[in-house]
């Protein structure tokens, strides 16, 4: 490893291409932390946004008009406002209303940190899209299938869990894939509320080392690879779930 580090140090001295996140142990640690935070943030948000999508789609099929209206209001509100402002709203406006808690060393700290707010805000943002996506999948399941399940004495929840959802997921995977890719890209917004994710740490590194072009190109490649891994995984999942004769 030391040879590689030395090589990059040499590269900097001879060509001026400065990649401190490879040869400098401090910057390397920062960037790895940032990368892990991005991955963690993405995964937690992916999970919660899908949960919100599934629950929201179920509520949209409710027979109560008001339940449907509230879910629709949520979708339209979150789809038609900027995610960054949502994030600010959650973090600054709602965050400042919550009671403060005592920390271990006797100070006062907000109840939820910036990471938690980023998770909440981004999950709700992506969840709004997921509700629509899941709903379109549920509509694709023919009524006769649901009626058959009803005639077998399944309850509404059981039908949703065991019949509708498994079929719907297979239909919606491509559009879900799209939305989740978007979500991973949107995690960069957490930079604005100082969540130490990859963009934030890169900004720290480039302000310390004045190597903006290198960090920028690294960032673009890093997100390209991250998104690529997600797309690859989703495609594998899509193939694994495929049932012969279903869908197109």
């Amino acid at each position, binding site marked *: 490893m030391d040879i590689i580090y030395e090589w990059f140090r040499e590269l900097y001295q001879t060509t001026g291409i400065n990649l401190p996140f490879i040869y400098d142990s401090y910057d390397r640690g920062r960037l790895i932390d940032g990368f892990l935070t991005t991955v963690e943030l993405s995964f937690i948000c992916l999970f919660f946004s899908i949960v919100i999508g599934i629950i929201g789609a179920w509520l949209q099929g409710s027979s109560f008009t008001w339940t449907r209206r509230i879910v629709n209001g949520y979708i*339209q509100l979150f789809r038609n406002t900027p995610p960054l*402002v949502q994030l600010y709203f959650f973090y600054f406006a709602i965050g400042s209303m919550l009671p403060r808690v005592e920390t271990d060393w006797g100070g006062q700290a907000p109840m939820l940190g910036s990471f938690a707010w980023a998770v909440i805000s981004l999950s709700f943002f992506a969840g709004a899209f997921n509700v629509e996506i899941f709903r*379109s999948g549920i*509509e*694709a399941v023919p009524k006769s299938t649901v009626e058959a399940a009803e005639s077998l004495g399944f309850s509404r929840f059981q039908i949703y869990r065991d019949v509708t959802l498994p079929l719907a997921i297979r239909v919606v995977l491509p559009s879900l894939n799209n939305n989740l890719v978007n979500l991973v*890209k949107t995690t960069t917004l957490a930079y604005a509320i100082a969540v130490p994710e990859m963009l934030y740490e890169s900004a720290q590194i480039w302000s310390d080392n004045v190597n903006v072009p290198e960090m920028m190109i690294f960032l*673009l490649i890093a997100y390209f690879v991250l998104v690529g891994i997600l797309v690859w995984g989703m495609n594998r999942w899509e193939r694994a779930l495929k049932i012969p004769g279903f869908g197109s």
Partner: protein
Amino acid sequence: MTQRSRSHDAPPKKTDMAVMLPVKRKAHDPFRLKLTPWHGVFLALVCIFTTSYGYATTAPEVDSIRTVMLRWMPLLLEGFLFNILISILSMAVGTAVGTILGLAQISLMPPIRHSSWFVTQFFRNAPWLVLLFFAMYLLPFEFTIAGATIPFPDWIKAIIGLSLPVMANVSEIVRGAVLSLPSGQWEAAESLAYTRRQTLWLIILPQCVKRMLPPWMNLYSILTMATVLASIVGVSEVMTLAGRVLAAEDGRTDLLAPLYSFVLFLFFVYCYPIARWTVYLESKFAVKG
């Protein structure tokens, strides 16, 4: 017309035992197309709740939230107009470059096709914020051409930075629209001895415009919402101004919620009609049968 109404009456059914029906577009749902004032009511409730919360905690000697909001509203609206300006200009630049890139993606020459595909995918998969930083830091702040110095302010750089992802998305929209046309159109044009360029300009692209319009408008709405990102890199648009208003009011925390909900409200009022219109166009242009 008769054909259209007939196909509308009888939805296509390939078999009686269809396991999966085709995915329905959301446009077909009458509930969604109905004007839902409840969305507005809900939003207003959020505003009122947050404002009254702030009002209750305000000491009597400082201005009430309503006074403060009214005082700064013209400034914030001006900032929002700047957002719209940025969005329109980036959309124009992105559409112009993206159309060329999209046409390059269906070029017959493999090098052009492959390289434009790569450029499209690269910019489509990069986060908007990173691209914005990219443009902000790597473009010079002024140009010197033949001794004359031309300044290159932040907001122009923001327009360029935002138009990069727009370009990539438009490129995909163009490619998708061209590929979605039945190949019979190409063959018919070929049999009438049209050249490739004539086919593209006179036959394919005019038909594509209709198909491209809904996703293009959707993209515009996404772009408008992305213009607030420019506040992170210091362009004086509505979010930056909201921050300055806060600073001017001595950072009162009770102002946070009304200010941010006002910004949310502005964007909602602008983007929601666009979204509704997109849905309407989608249902209008949807190929039936």
